[in-house]
Protein backbone atom coordinates (compact mmCIF):
# COMPACT_ATOMS: atom_id res chain seq x y z
CA UNK A 1 0.00 0.00 0.00
CA UNK A 2 2.80 2.40 0.90
CA UNK A 3 4.67 1.53 -2.28
CA UNK A 4 1.55 2.22 -4.36
CA UNK A 5 1.06 5.58 -2.62
CA UNK A 6 4.69 6.51 -3.27
CA UNK A 7 4.35 5.55 -6.93
CA UNK A 8 1.24 7.69 -7.17
CA UNK A 9 3.02 10.60 -5.47
CA UNK A 10 5.95 10.25 -7.88
CA UNK A 11 3.56 10.24 -10.84
CA UNK A 12 1.80 13.38 -9.59
CA UNK A 13 5.11 15.13 -8.96
CA UNK A 14 6.24 14.28 -12.48
CA UNK A 15 2.95 15.58 -13.86
CA UNK A 16 3.61 18.97 -12.24
CA UNK A 17 7.24 18.99 -13.40
CA UNK A 18 8.89 18.21 -10.05
CA UNK A 19 11.77 15.91 -10.95
CA UNK A 20 15.33 15.21 -9.86
CA UNK A 21 16.53 16.17 -6.41
CA UNK A 22 13.36 17.88 -5.08
CA UNK A 23 11.26 14.85 -6.09
CA UNK A 24 13.75 12.38 -4.59
CA UNK A 25 13.83 14.37 -1.37
CA UNK A 26 10.05 14.42 -0.92
CA UNK A 27 9.70 10.76 -1.86
CA UNK A 28 12.41 9.78 0.60
CA UNK A 29 10.81 11.79 3.40
CA UNK A 30 7.35 10.48 2.53
CA UNK A 31 8.62 6.88 2.58
CA UNK A 32 10.09 7.27 6.08
CA UNK A 33 7.00 9.13 7.23
CA UNK A 34 4.62 6.42 6.01
CA UNK A 35 6.76 3.64 7.48
CA UNK A 36 6.71 5.38 10.86
CA UNK A 37 2.98 6.04 10.68
CA UNK A 38 2.22 2.44 9.63
CA UNK A 39 3.71 1.13 12.88
CA UNK A 40 0.82 2.44 14.92
CA UNK A 41 -2.21 2.12 12.64
CA UNK A 42 -1.21 0.00 9.65
CA UNK A 43 -0.36 0.99 6.09
CA UNK A 44 -3.88 1.95 4.99
CA UNK A 45 -4.28 4.33 7.92
CA UNK A 46 -0.81 5.81 7.32
CA UNK A 47 -1.62 6.53 3.67
CA UNK A 48 -5.02 7.99 4.58
CA UNK A 49 -3.50 10.28 7.24
CA UNK A 50 -0.84 11.46 4.79
CA UNK A 51 -3.63 13.20 2.88
CA UNK A 52 -4.40 14.06 -0.73
CA UNK A 53 -1.30 13.17 -2.76
CA UNK A 54 -2.26 15.53 -5.56
CA UNK A 55 -2.48 18.43 -3.09
CA UNK A 56 0.94 17.60 -1.64
CA UNK A 57 2.47 17.34 -5.13
CA UNK A 58 0.87 20.62 -6.21
CA UNK A 59 2.08 22.46 -3.10
CA UNK A 60 5.61 21.12 -3.50
CA UNK A 61 5.55 22.11 -7.19
CA UNK A 62 4.52 25.65 -6.25
CA UNK A 63 7.26 25.80 -3.64
CA UNK A 64 9.99 24.45 -5.95
CA UNK A 65 8.84 26.74 -8.79
CA UNK A 66 8.96 29.79 -6.52
CA UNK A 67 12.44 28.90 -5.27
CA UNK A 68 13.80 28.24 -8.77
CA UNK A 69 12.47 31.48 -10.23
CA UNK A 70 13.72 33.44 -7.26
CA UNK A 71 17.19 31.88 -7.56
CA UNK A 72 17.21 32.49 -11.32
CA UNK A 73 16.32 36.14 -10.72
CA UNK A 74 19.13 36.65 -8.21
CA UNK A 75 21.52 34.95 -10.66
CA UNK A 76 20.34 37.17 -13.52
CA UNK A 77 20.82 40.29 -11.45
CA UNK A 78 24.35 39.22 -10.48
CA UNK A 79 25.14 38.52 -14.15
CA UNK A 80 23.78 41.93 -15.11
CA UNK A 81 26.04 43.41 -12.42
CA UNK A 82 29.05 41.81 -14.12
CA UNK A 83 27.92 43.16 -17.50
CA UNK A 84 27.43 46.62 -15.95
CA UNK A 85 30.95 46.51 -14.50
CA UNK A 86 32.37 45.67 -17.95
CA UNK A 87 30.30 48.47 -19.53
CA UNK A 88 31.40 51.12 -17.04
CA UNK A 89 35.06 50.04 -17.25
CA UNK A 90 35.10 50.17 -21.06
CA UNK A 91 33.51 53.59 -21.35
CA UNK A 92 35.45 55.07 -18.45
CA UNK A 93 38.69 54.19 -20.27
CA UNK A 94 37.76 55.88 -23.57
CA UNK A 95 39.50 59.19 -22.65
CA UNK A 96 42.75 57.26 -22.03
CA UNK A 97 42.41 55.45 -25.35
CA UNK A 98 42.26 58.62 -27.44
CA UNK A 99 38.97 60.25 -26.47
CA UNK A 100 35.48 59.94 -27.95
CA UNK A 101 35.73 59.80 -31.76
CA UNK A 102 33.16 61.30 -34.10
CA UNK A 103 30.15 58.99 -34.17
CA UNK A 104 30.21 58.72 -38.00
CA UNK A 105 34.00 58.32 -38.26
CA UNK A 106 34.15 54.53 -37.88
CA UNK A 107 34.97 51.95 -40.55
CA UNK A 108 31.30 51.64 -41.52
CA UNK A 109 29.50 54.97 -41.16
CA UNK A 110 26.04 53.68 -40.21
CA UNK A 111 27.36 51.26 -37.58
CA UNK A 112 28.60 54.10 -35.36
CA UNK A 113 25.25 55.77 -34.63
CA UNK A 114 23.37 52.45 -34.47
CA UNK A 115 25.73 50.87 -31.96
CA UNK A 116 25.83 54.13 -29.98
CA UNK A 117 22.03 54.21 -29.67
CA UNK A 118 21.99 50.52 -28.69
CA UNK A 119 24.78 51.12 -26.16
CA UNK A 120 22.72 53.86 -24.54
CA UNK A 121 19.22 52.34 -24.64
CA UNK A 122 19.74 48.62 -24.06
CA UNK A 123 21.55 48.91 -20.71
CA UNK A 124 18.79 51.18 -19.42
CA UNK A 125 16.09 48.66 -20.37
CA UNK A 126 18.19 45.88 -18.83
CA UNK A 127 18.61 47.90 -15.66
CA UNK A 128 14.91 48.73 -15.26
CA UNK A 129 13.74 45.23 -16.11
CA UNK A 130 16.37 43.59 -13.89
CA UNK A 131 15.53 45.86 -10.95
CA UNK A 132 11.81 45.18 -11.29
CA UNK A 133 12.49 41.44 -11.37
CA UNK A 134 14.72 41.74 -8.31
CA UNK A 135 12.17 43.73 -6.30
CA UNK A 136 9.46 41.16 -7.09
CA UNK A 137 11.83 38.27 -6.29
CA UNK A 138 12.79 39.73 -2.92
CA UNK A 139 9.10 39.91 -2.08
CA UNK A 140 8.74 36.21 -2.98
CA UNK A 141 10.82 35.30 0.05
CA UNK A 142 7.90 36.12 2.28
CA UNK A 143 4.97 34.76 0.28
CA UNK A 144 3.47 31.34 0.79
CA UNK A 145 2.88 30.39 -2.85
CA UNK A 146 3.54 32.70 -5.76
CA UNK A 147 0.81 32.49 -8.42
CA UNK A 148 1.90 30.99 -11.72
CA UNK A 149 1.17 34.34 -13.40
CA UNK A 150 3.63 36.06 -11.05
CA UNK A 151 6.37 33.54 -11.82
CA UNK A 152 5.78 33.96 -15.56
CA UNK A 153 6.09 37.73 -15.16
CA UNK A 154 9.38 37.33 -13.30
CA UNK A 155 10.71 35.10 -16.07
CA UNK A 156 9.69 37.67 -18.69
CA UNK A 157 11.37 40.53 -16.81
CA UNK A 158 14.53 38.44 -16.43
CA UNK A 159 14.48 37.40 -20.08
CA UNK A 160 14.18 41.03 -21.22
CA UNK A 161 16.97 42.07 -18.85
CA UNK A 162 19.31 39.28 -19.97
CA UNK A 163 18.57 39.85 -23.68
CA UNK A 164 19.18 43.60 -23.34
CA UNK A 165 22.32 42.97 -21.27
CA UNK A 166 23.64 40.65 -23.98
CA UNK A 167 22.61 43.18 -26.66
CA UNK A 168 24.59 45.85 -24.82
CA UNK A 169 27.73 43.71 -24.87
CA UNK A 170 27.28 43.03 -28.58
CA UNK A 171 26.76 46.74 -29.29
CA UNK A 172 29.84 47.56 -27.23
CA UNK A 173 31.98 45.05 -29.16
CA UNK A 174 30.67 46.27 -32.51
CA UNK A 175 31.44 49.87 -31.51
CA UNK A 176 34.97 48.86 -30.58
CA UNK A 177 35.68 46.98 -33.82
CA UNK A 178 34.15 49.82 -35.83
CA UNK A 179 36.42 52.30 -34.06
CA UNK A 180 39.61 50.49 -35.10
CA UNK A 181 42.24 53.08 -35.96
CA UNK A 182 40.37 55.79 -34.06
CA UNK A 183 40.99 54.42 -30.56
CA UNK A 184 44.00 52.65 -29.05
CA UNK A 185 44.37 48.96 -29.91
CA UNK A 186 44.59 47.96 -26.23
CA UNK A 187 41.14 49.51 -25.62
CA UNK A 188 39.59 47.55 -28.48
CA UNK A 189 41.17 44.31 -27.21
CA UNK A 190 40.05 45.03 -23.65
CA UNK A 191 36.50 45.79 -24.80
CA UNK A 192 36.24 42.50 -26.68
CA UNK A 193 37.75 40.52 -23.80
CA UNK A 194 35.46 42.09 -21.19
CA UNK A 195 32.43 41.58 -23.44
CA UNK A 196 33.20 37.88 -23.81
CA UNK A 197 33.90 37.52 -20.09
CA UNK A 198 30.62 39.25 -19.15
CA UNK A 199 28.67 37.13 -21.64
CA UNK A 200 29.50 33.94 -19.72
CA UNK A 201 27.53 34.78 -16.53
CA UNK A 202 24.70 36.13 -18.69
CA UNK A 203 24.56 32.85 -20.61
CA UNK A 204 24.55 30.88 -17.35
CA UNK A 205 21.76 33.09 -16.05
CA UNK A 206 19.83 32.40 -19.24
CA UNK A 207 20.22 28.65 -18.72
CA UNK A 208 19.06 28.93 -15.10
CA UNK A 209 16.08 30.98 -16.24
CA UNK A 210 15.16 28.43 -18.92
CA UNK A 211 15.34 25.66 -16.33
CA UNK A 212 13.02 27.57 -14.00
CA UNK A 213 10.08 26.98 -16.35
CA UNK A 214 9.57 23.59 -14.63
CA UNK A 215 7.86 22.83 -12.37
CA UNK A 216 4.76 24.86 -13.04
CA UNK A 217 3.23 26.43 -9.97
CA UNK A 218 -0.35 25.43 -10.90
CA UNK A 219 -1.71 28.03 -8.51
CA UNK A 220 -4.12 30.78 -9.50
CA UNK A 221 -3.98 34.50 -8.81
CA UNK A 222 -2.88 37.57 -10.70
CA UNK A 223 0.66 38.78 -11.25
CA UNK A 224 1.69 41.94 -9.46
CA UNK A 225 2.71 45.07 -11.39
CA UNK A 226 5.07 47.97 -10.99
CA UNK A 227 2.60 49.70 -8.65
CA UNK A 228 2.74 46.72 -6.29
CA UNK A 229 6.52 46.45 -6.66
CA UNK A 230 7.05 50.09 -5.71
CA UNK A 231 4.04 50.40 -3.40
CA UNK A 232 5.65 52.73 -0.83
CA UNK A 233 6.71 55.15 -3.61
CA UNK A 234 3.27 55.30 -5.20
CA UNK A 235 1.67 55.59 -1.76
CA UNK A 236 3.31 59.01 -1.33
CA UNK A 237 0.45 61.54 -1.20
CA UNK A 238 1.44 63.80 -4.17
CA UNK A 239 1.84 60.73 -6.41
CA UNK A 240 -1.35 59.14 -5.10
CA UNK A 241 -3.30 62.17 -6.25
CA UNK A 242 -2.10 61.59 -9.83
CA UNK A 243 -3.91 58.20 -9.87
CA UNK A 244 -1.07 56.71 -11.91
CA UNK A 245 -2.14 53.03 -11.66
CA UNK A 246 -5.44 53.91 -13.33
CA UNK A 247 -3.82 56.05 -16.04
CA UNK A 248 -0.85 54.20 -17.57
CA UNK A 249 0.08 56.92 -20.06
CA UNK A 250 -0.03 59.56 -17.34
CA UNK A 251 2.48 57.36 -15.52
CA UNK A 252 4.63 57.02 -18.66
CA UNK A 253 4.53 60.78 -19.34
CA UNK A 254 5.46 61.55 -15.71
CA UNK A 255 8.47 59.23 -15.99
CA UNK A 256 9.39 60.74 -19.37
CA UNK A 257 9.22 64.26 -17.89
CA UNK A 258 11.49 63.24 -15.04
CA UNK A 259 13.92 61.56 -17.44
CA UNK A 260 13.86 64.63 -19.71
CA UNK A 261 14.81 66.91 -16.81
CA UNK A 262 17.57 64.54 -15.71
CA UNK A 263 18.82 64.31 -19.31
CA UNK A 264 18.88 68.12 -19.65
CA UNK A 265 20.77 68.52 -16.37
CA UNK A 266 23.19 65.67 -17.21
CA UNK A 267 23.83 66.85 -20.77
CA UNK A 268 24.29 70.44 -19.70
CA UNK A 269 26.73 69.42 -16.96
CA UNK A 270 28.68 66.98 -19.16
CA UNK A 271 28.96 69.14 -22.26
CA UNK A 272 28.57 72.62 -20.80
CA UNK A 273 25.86 73.41 -23.32
CA UNK A 274 22.13 73.58 -22.44
CA UNK A 275 21.21 72.82 -26.06
CA UNK A 276 23.00 69.46 -25.88
CA UNK A 277 21.21 68.79 -22.61
CA UNK A 278 17.82 69.41 -24.22
CA UNK A 279 18.66 67.10 -27.14
CA UNK A 280 19.84 64.36 -24.77
CA UNK A 281 16.83 64.79 -22.48
CA UNK A 282 14.38 64.69 -25.40
CA UNK A 283 16.05 61.56 -26.82
CA UNK A 284 15.82 59.78 -23.46
CA UNK A 285 12.19 60.83 -22.95
CA UNK A 286 11.10 59.69 -26.41
CA UNK A 287 13.00 56.42 -25.96
CA UNK A 288 11.28 55.84 -22.63
CA UNK A 289 7.84 56.38 -24.16
CA UNK A 290 8.67 54.03 -27.03
CA UNK A 291 9.88 51.35 -24.60
CA UNK A 292 6.75 51.84 -22.50
CA UNK A 293 4.59 51.29 -25.57
CA UNK A 294 6.58 48.21 -26.62
CA UNK A 295 7.26 46.57 -23.24
CA UNK A 296 4.71 48.10 -20.85
CA UNK A 297 2.43 45.07 -20.84
CA UNK A 298 5.24 42.49 -20.98
CA UNK A 299 6.95 43.93 -17.91
CA UNK A 300 3.66 44.86 -16.19
CA UNK A 301 4.46 48.56 -16.12
CA UNK A 302 0.78 49.12 -16.57
CA UNK A 303 -2.06 47.61 -14.61
CA UNK A 304 -4.28 45.35 -16.66
CA UNK A 305 -8.06 45.65 -16.58
CA UNK A 306 -8.48 42.62 -14.30
CA UNK A 307 -5.73 43.73 -11.94
Amino acid sequence: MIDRALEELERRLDEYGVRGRPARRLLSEAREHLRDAARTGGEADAVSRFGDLDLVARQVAAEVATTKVRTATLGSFAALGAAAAAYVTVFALVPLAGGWPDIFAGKVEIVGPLSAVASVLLPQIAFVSGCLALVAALRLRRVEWAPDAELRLLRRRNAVAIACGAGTLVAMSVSAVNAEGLLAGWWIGLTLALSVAATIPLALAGVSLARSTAPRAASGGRATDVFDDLGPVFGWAPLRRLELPEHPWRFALSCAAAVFLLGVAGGWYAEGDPGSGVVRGAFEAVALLACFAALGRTLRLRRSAEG
Partner: protein
Amino acid sequence: MKDGPKGHVDLLLLSALEAGPAHGYGLVEALRERSDGELDLAEGTVYPALYRLERQGLIESSWADGQTRRRRIYRLSTRGVAELASGRDSWRRWVQAMDAVIA
Protein backbone atom coordinates in the same frame (compact mmCIF):
# COMPACT_ATOMS: atom_id res chain seq x y z
CA MET B 1 -9.67 21.49 14.44
CA LYS B 2 -8.74 20.22 10.98
CA ASP B 3 -6.12 22.02 8.85
CA GLY B 4 -5.95 25.53 10.24
CA PRO B 5 -4.93 28.45 8.06
CA LYS B 6 -1.50 28.06 6.44
CA GLY B 7 0.11 30.85 8.44
CA HIS B 8 -0.91 29.03 11.57
CA VAL B 9 0.65 25.79 10.34
CA ASP B 10 3.93 27.69 9.96
CA LEU B 11 3.67 28.96 13.53
CA LEU B 12 2.81 25.48 14.80
CA LEU B 13 5.80 23.94 13.04
CA LEU B 14 8.19 26.60 14.33
CA SER B 15 6.79 26.10 17.80
CA ALA B 16 7.21 22.31 17.60
CA LEU B 17 10.82 22.78 16.48
CA GLU B 18 11.53 24.97 19.48
CA ALA B 19 11.73 21.79 21.55
CA GLY B 20 14.62 20.59 19.37
CA PRO B 21 15.47 19.21 15.92
CA ALA B 22 12.98 16.74 14.49
CA HIS B 23 12.01 14.97 11.28
CA GLY B 24 8.67 15.44 9.52
CA TYR B 25 6.82 12.59 11.19
CA GLY B 26 8.23 13.59 14.58
CA LEU B 27 6.81 17.08 14.12
CA VAL B 28 3.36 15.75 13.21
CA GLU B 29 3.42 13.51 16.27
CA ALA B 30 4.55 16.38 18.49
CA LEU B 31 1.70 18.56 17.27
CA ARG B 32 -0.81 15.79 17.84
CA GLU B 33 0.48 15.05 21.35
CA ARG B 34 0.74 18.65 22.44
CA SER B 35 -2.80 19.37 21.26
CA ASP B 36 -4.24 16.16 22.79
CA GLY B 37 -5.12 14.96 19.32
CA GLU B 38 -7.06 18.13 18.40
CA LEU B 39 -4.60 19.18 15.68
CA ASP B 40 -5.06 16.52 13.04
CA LEU B 41 -3.20 17.79 9.96
CA ALA B 42 -3.17 16.13 6.57
CA GLU B 43 0.32 14.92 7.33
CA GLY B 44 1.78 15.18 3.83
CA THR B 45 1.10 18.91 3.69
CA VAL B 46 3.69 19.41 6.42
CA TYR B 47 6.48 18.89 3.86
CA PRO B 48 5.67 21.76 1.48
CA ALA B 49 5.25 23.94 4.58
CA LEU B 50 8.68 22.86 5.84
CA TYR B 51 10.24 23.57 2.42
CA ARG B 52 8.67 27.03 2.46
CA LEU B 53 10.00 27.77 5.96
CA GLU B 54 13.42 26.66 4.77
CA ARG B 55 13.22 29.00 1.74
CA GLN B 56 12.29 31.82 4.10
CA GLY B 57 15.39 31.07 6.16
CA LEU B 58 13.36 30.26 9.28
CA ILE B 59 14.52 26.65 9.56
CA GLU B 60 17.49 24.61 8.39
CA SER B 61 17.70 20.94 7.51
CA SER B 62 20.18 18.17 6.82
CA TRP B 63 20.15 14.43 6.21
CA ALA B 64 20.89 12.17 9.14
CA ASP B 65 21.93 8.64 8.22
CA GLY B 66 20.93 5.96 10.71
CA GLN B 67 21.78 2.26 10.53
CA THR B 68 18.90 1.43 8.22
CA ARG B 69 17.13 4.73 7.57
CA ARG B 70 17.94 8.13 6.18
CA ARG B 71 15.96 11.03 7.60
CA ARG B 72 15.79 14.76 6.95
CA ILE B 73 16.18 16.58 10.25
CA TYR B 74 14.83 20.11 10.66
CA ARG B 75 15.93 22.71 13.18
CA LEU B 76 15.11 26.35 13.93
CA SER B 77 17.45 28.99 12.56
CA THR B 78 18.24 32.20 14.42
CA ARG B 79 15.73 34.02 12.24
CA GLY B 80 13.20 31.31 12.97
CA VAL B 81 13.57 31.87 16.72
CA ALA B 82 12.83 35.58 16.24
CA GLU B 83 9.93 34.84 13.89
CA LEU B 84 8.46 32.41 16.39
CA ALA B 85 8.57 35.02 19.16
CA SER B 86 6.91 37.57 16.91
CA GLY B 87 4.32 35.09 15.62
CA ARG B 88 3.47 33.97 19.15
CA ASP B 89 2.98 37.57 20.21
CA SER B 90 0.68 38.30 17.24
CA TRP B 91 -1.28 35.13 17.86
CA ARG B 92 -1.87 36.00 21.56
CA ARG B 93 -3.05 39.49 20.66
CA TRP B 94 -5.41 38.02 18.07
CA VAL B 95 -6.81 35.48 20.56
CA GLN B 96 -7.34 38.21 23.16
CA ALA B 97 -9.13 40.36 20.61
CA MET B 98 -11.33 37.45 19.52
CA ASP B 99 -12.10 36.59 23.14
CA ALA B 100 -13.05 40.17 23.87
CA VAL B 101 -15.49 40.15 20.99
CA ILE B 102 -17.10 36.74 21.19
CA ALA B 103 -16.96 36.05 24.94
